[in-house]
């Protein structure tokens, strides 16, 4: 079966944005609309089902027009909705964060109640706090709400404080510094704690004795709640023993959460994709699994999670400068080790370029469990479904402007890997690899699949704005890229191509690639063309 693919172009100047929840100081939760109808795991969108009417934070509603296709991957659709919302923010709302930082995800929802299909679309406002909300209209001409599962929905406004907190100890302000060099939207959660109860307040995972799963289960997220909770995950393989086989044919999980708060879910969650984050409970724990065979078993894994008790030593509160915090993102960027705050200074937040600063006067201590969210928006594409790149008029012996593109599969597959980019033909250029004042076809990449390789930590950068030709004119990448090739050779096999990272979290996407040409001194002619070819494995 053919996978349906597309190419997406980004402006070289595109950049990500981090926000504090629309002036809410990173405090509170986001209002949301969750689609709860069972729609399976492929989406058909066409001319009569491509309009989604949204209202955010109770403001004026508007339609966004969705990408059309048959059998679309829901992760792809979720990112399309997000990008359309962000475009609408610019077109109609002056870049207001409520739209510009709103995010649609495909995730397993953990809200209370019985839901037949726990994997669904969730749209969250870019605003934190009680004024945050999202309303999806369930009527209208050519409405997409039914095909997206919003025919039945659950909507709730944001809360002033998260994780059941009644009040925070910290009364100062939180500021975000640095720049966000992530390639996809991401939400960071920051919790004041010193990690003495386990990394991100999550303890040691115990695998059940009868659990024969031989792959790697990875825990993620950051737990924050008023009490300790021990989650026991069970697995059922009545429908299938391996992931990636489509709804109705994959393993499922549910869990019990006992201890300081009832947080069990008896509804089964289909494990549709390997290496994809699934939420366990409502308080921050996530898990993902590599591709391997599951068996029906209970308990499959036991995961103790601890309420944050201390911010420094055995002190529940401490001043800025001694208090510590931990952070984690919904894409699995984890701190691993608690970070000490610095009085009057910024400290690390994530591995993609952000920093955070706590500021307060006397008596403004941080208290264990004080929690903050930072909402990050990705660089926005400039063009979809591009069929060519035009380097413009290039003078001999000079470098052309750079172009940045991303490859993705929109339907016909559930995962991709082993992405290779290559030059299929150097066309009418006569001085490529000729050894006589040659023409060079340059290439560089970094992204969620292969983050930057520089010697300085952190190394989680996935995008770098305003790249120059000089950044990719050698085979040694700068610190903010993963790999470069100063001159692509014409090759005919995947093995000879340039490796490009891939990511399953926001669709089936390649890492972004930057391309340009340096025209050899003796090249002549006009309208010269070359062909690139990209190889990829999919299933």
């Amino acid at each position, binding site marked *: 079966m*053919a996978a349906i693919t597309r190419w997406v172009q980004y402006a070289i100047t595109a950049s990500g944005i981090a926000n504090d929840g629309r002036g809410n100081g990173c405090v509170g939760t986001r209002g949301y609309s969750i689609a709860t109808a069972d729609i399976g795991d492929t989406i058909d969108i066409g001319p009569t089902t491509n309009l989604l009417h949204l209202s955010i934070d109770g403001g004026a509603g508007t339609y966004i027009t969705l990408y059309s296709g048959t059998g679309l991957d829901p992760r792809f659709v979720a990112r399309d909705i997000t990008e359309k919302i962000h475009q609408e923010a610019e077109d109609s709302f002056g870049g207001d964060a409520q739209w510009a930082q709103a995010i649609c995800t495909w995730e397993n929802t953990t809200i209370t109640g019985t839901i037949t299909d726990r994997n669904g679309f969730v749209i969250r406002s870019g605003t934190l706090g009680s004024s945050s909300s999202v309303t999806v209209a369930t009527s209208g001409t050519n409405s997409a709400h039914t095909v997206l599962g919003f025919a039945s929905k659950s909507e709730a406004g944001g809360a002033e404080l998260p994780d059941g907190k009644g009040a925070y100890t910290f009364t100062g302000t939180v500021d975000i510094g640095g720049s966000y060099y992530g390639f996809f939207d991401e939400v960071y959660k920051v919790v004041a704690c010193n990690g003495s109860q386990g990394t991100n307040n999550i303890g040691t995972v115990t695998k059940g004795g009868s659990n024969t799963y031989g792959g790697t289960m990875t825990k993620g997220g950051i737990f924050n709640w008023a009490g300790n909770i021990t989650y026991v995950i069970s697995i059922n393989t009545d429908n299938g023993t*391996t992931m990636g086989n489509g709804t109705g*044919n994959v393993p499922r999980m549910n869990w019990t959460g006992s201890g300081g708060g009832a947080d069990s879910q008896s509804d089964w969650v289909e494990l549709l994709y390997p290496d994809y984050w699934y939420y366990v409970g409502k308080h921050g724990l996530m898990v993902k699994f590599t591709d391997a065979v599951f068996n029906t078993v209970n308990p499959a894994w036991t995961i103790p999670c601890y309420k944050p008790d201390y911010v420094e030593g055995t002190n529940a509160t401490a001043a800025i400068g001694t208090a510590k915090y931990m952070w984690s993102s919904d894409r699995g960027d984890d701190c691993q080790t608690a970070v000490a705050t610095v009085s009057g200074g910024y400290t690390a937040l994530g591995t993609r370029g952000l920093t955070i600063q706590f500021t307060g006067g006397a008596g403004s201590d941080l208290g264990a469990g004080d929690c903050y969210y930072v909402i990050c928006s990705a660089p926005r594409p400039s063009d979809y479904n591009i069929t*060519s790149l035009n380097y413009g008029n290039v003078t001999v012996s000079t470098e052309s402007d750079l172009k940045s593109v991303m490859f993705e599969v929109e339907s016909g597959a559930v995962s991709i890997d082993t992405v290779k980019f290559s030059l299929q033909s150097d066309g009418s250029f006569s001085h490529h690899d000729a050894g006589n004042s040659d023409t060079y076809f340059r290439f560089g990449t970094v992204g969620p699949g292969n983050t930057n390789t520089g010697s300085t930590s952190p190394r989680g950068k996935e995008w770098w704005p305003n790249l120059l030709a000089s950044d990719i004119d050698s085979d040694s990448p700068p610190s903010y890229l993963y790999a470069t090739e100063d001159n692509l050779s014409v090759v005919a096999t995947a093995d000879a191509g340039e490796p490009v990272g891939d990511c399953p979290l926001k669709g089936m996407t390649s890492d972004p690639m930057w391309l340009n040409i340096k025209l050899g001194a003796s090249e002549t002619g006009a309208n010269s063309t070359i062909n690139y*070819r990209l190889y990829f494995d999919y299933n």
Partner: protein
Amino acid sequence: MRRGWEVELSNGVILRESDLDWKKVPKNQIVRLSLLYDGRIWNLSGKEAYFVKYRASVVPGIAESFRVERRTIGFYEGAKKICYHVEESTGKFSMEVIDNSGD
């Protein structure tokens, strides 16, 4: 069908790549998975779980340039995926073991 996968279910039904998306195959009922290539056939049976996979290539933005480079059938041994590859242009066969236990 000259090339592609073929599945035999426990009820005797035969499913083929030309007729069905792999996602729609009831995986728990597979008793045989075969890969066909111009009269050659590779058969897998008696395994706990199966998969199919493709290697493809495409010229950026030119849908008509999409082509399958390699077809793969395989099975799981716990966290290991045992792959049977057949190159689309030559029919050359190779095997590969992918270990997902440690990544």
